[in-house]
């Protein structure tokens, strides 16, 4: 990444913030705003996964598990023990971080396929446990009656669409900014070194095991934050969302946007969250088209959209810029 002058690097963030502020007023459709709130939650997880995959070069097919642990933990503490949502959310995030730490130590010793499988196995075990929670939730379908967040007497329940939207996106943008700062820090450079070559990084004195577990825990914390918000926004959670399908969708969001590019992560999340909504025009064939699109995008743009758009932009730029054209001809 080129070192920009300090104000220049904030431009994309400011543009994103402006779009996000305008969107709900321009849209005016509560359903669409709710979808964008979900995009905000997924953005948190995808930014964390992007750090893990694109910067540290590790794969996780189990992040829906952390999403689910965060949601169920906060929801259960709230419903069963009567803790206020803010407190239960903080405990849930710390709890998820602890689990990620203990899972991360043995898991991150594995590489490539084996890492993918171990995280997949973890995610499925979490899913099975959450599916059999009825002894605790007293409800075979999921956990109901979760209290919404409250702030200065205002309840952020499902009728307060705007409130949920802005709460989700303020936290999501905060996570984006924190993550960008991390990638430009000493730790971020260590991640990139690990991605480049683990052997080289370790011989340069980078403590690989420590950094890998750190980024893994951080990405799990982001997922837990999203999980807590999801639980208290929806006020009802069912296990079906916290499974492999979601984990893979999250990974796909990272890859489609472009690994190692935080803005790509946002783009990938927006596209893949809206895609099922757009595909409803295909009626019963929506799942089939979803599968085809995944394959086509991966076959033709394995570097993701942002990478592909950048090359396209450069190609167009060189075509219309007479100087470089002359150089090519000469």
């Amino acid at each position, binding site marked *: 990444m080129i070192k920009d002058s300090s104000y220049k690097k904030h431009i994309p963030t400011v543009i994103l913030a402006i779009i996000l502020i305008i969107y709900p007023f321009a849209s005016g459709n509560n359903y669409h705003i709710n979808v964008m709130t979900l995009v905000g939650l997924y953005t948190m997880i995808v930014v964390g996964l992007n750090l893990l995959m694109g910067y540290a070069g590790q794969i996780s097919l189990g992040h829906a598990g952390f999403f689910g642990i965060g949601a169920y933990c906060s929801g259960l503490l709230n419903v069963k023990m009567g803790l206020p949502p803010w407190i239960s959310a903080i405990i849930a995030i710390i709890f998820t971080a602890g689990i990620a730490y203990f899972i991360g130590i043995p898991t991150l010793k594995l590489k490539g396929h084996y890492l993918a499988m171990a995280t997949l196995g973890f995610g499925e075990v979490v899913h099975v446990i959450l599916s059999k929670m009825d002894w605790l939730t007293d409800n075979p379908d999921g956990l109901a009656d979760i209290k919404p967040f409250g702030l200065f007497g205002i309840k952020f329940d499902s009728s307060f669409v705007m409130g949920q939207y802005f709460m989700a996106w303020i936290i999501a943008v905060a996570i984006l900014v924190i993550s960008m700062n991390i990638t430009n820090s000493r730790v971020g450079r260590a991640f990139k070194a690990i991605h480049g070559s683990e052997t080289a990084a370790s011989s340069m004195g980078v403590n690989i095991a420590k950094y890998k577990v750190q980024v893994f825990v951080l990405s799990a914390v982001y997922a837990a934050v999203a999980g807590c918000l999801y639980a208290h926004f929806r006020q009802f959670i069912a296990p079906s969302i916290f499974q492999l399908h979601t984990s893979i969708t999250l990974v*796909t969001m990272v890859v489609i946007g472009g690994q190692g590019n935080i803005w790509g992560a946002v783009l990938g999340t927006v596209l893949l969250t809206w895609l099922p909504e757009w595909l409803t025009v295909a009626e019963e064939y929506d799942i089939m088209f979803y599968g085809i699109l995944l394959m086509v995008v991966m076959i033709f743009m394995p570097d993701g959209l942002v990478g592909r758009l950048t090359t396209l932009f450069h190609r167009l730029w060189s075509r219309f810029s007479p100087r470089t054209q002359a150089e090519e001809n000469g």
Partner: protein
Amino acid sequence: MQFPTFQQLIQHIIYGITVGGIYALVAMGFTIIYNATDVINFAQGGFVMLGAMIMVSLNTTLNLPMPLAFFLSILIVTAIGIIFERAAINPVKNASVITLIIITVGASIFFSGIALPIWGQDPIYAKPFSSGDPVSFLGAKISLQQLWVLGITAVIVVAVQLFYKYTIIGKAMRATAINRTAARLMGINVRLMVLCSFALSAAVGAGAGMAIAPVAHASYDMGSMLGLKGFCAAVLGGLGNGVGAVVGGFTIGIIERLAIGFAPLGYSGYKDAVAFIILLVILFLKPSGLFGTSQK
């Protein structure tokens, strides 16, 4: 803890062996493709589902006799495997692990996305291969279809081993699996071998699906869980090891069934976690699996 009687124990083991045979076949499918390409084919469950659904449709809708439906279905799914390789795997060169995983996941979503409008959401009834009373064995009952599952598993496992050992294509596929560059230098068309491995894997998967269809519920999403369990079995046996895949399949099938048998009442719902816990334990302790040598 509940303690099953000896008879129940035998019954559980027999069920375990039946399901284990299917896991073994799915695991073999994973192994065949992994050896040729280093791809973990998440669409393997799709082949299993397509095999079952196509056979049932040929048998009940077109009224074809069962054996004909069985072999036609294998042929159709093999063709699907070949098309899948040509369309989605062959064009991608030097792709990363994660790109290939997403492509095969996309294919598996595509397969169930096609099956859903064709066969609907509810399980379809699959006729057993032969009608008759269950056989008694040590006080336990074995249905004829369970015997069919075991028989088909045995035939497929032996046939694939013979194919690898005695045919020229099989030998070339083994050579490709051991060392791709060396195989190419020996004049083996490696790309063709990759294609063959997808065809073979699809055929094995279809066989598994057809055998299990009358025992389990044949539906558009039957492939996903079978695929994942077979995947655990392949890792348990040592990814890329054919014999290991078969042993891994039976092991997971039997342990899973015994876990149901011994679980306290109300806890048998956790059975789906068993295979994945085995997967995690083996990955943490010995990632190369029971029969694996060092990672290649």
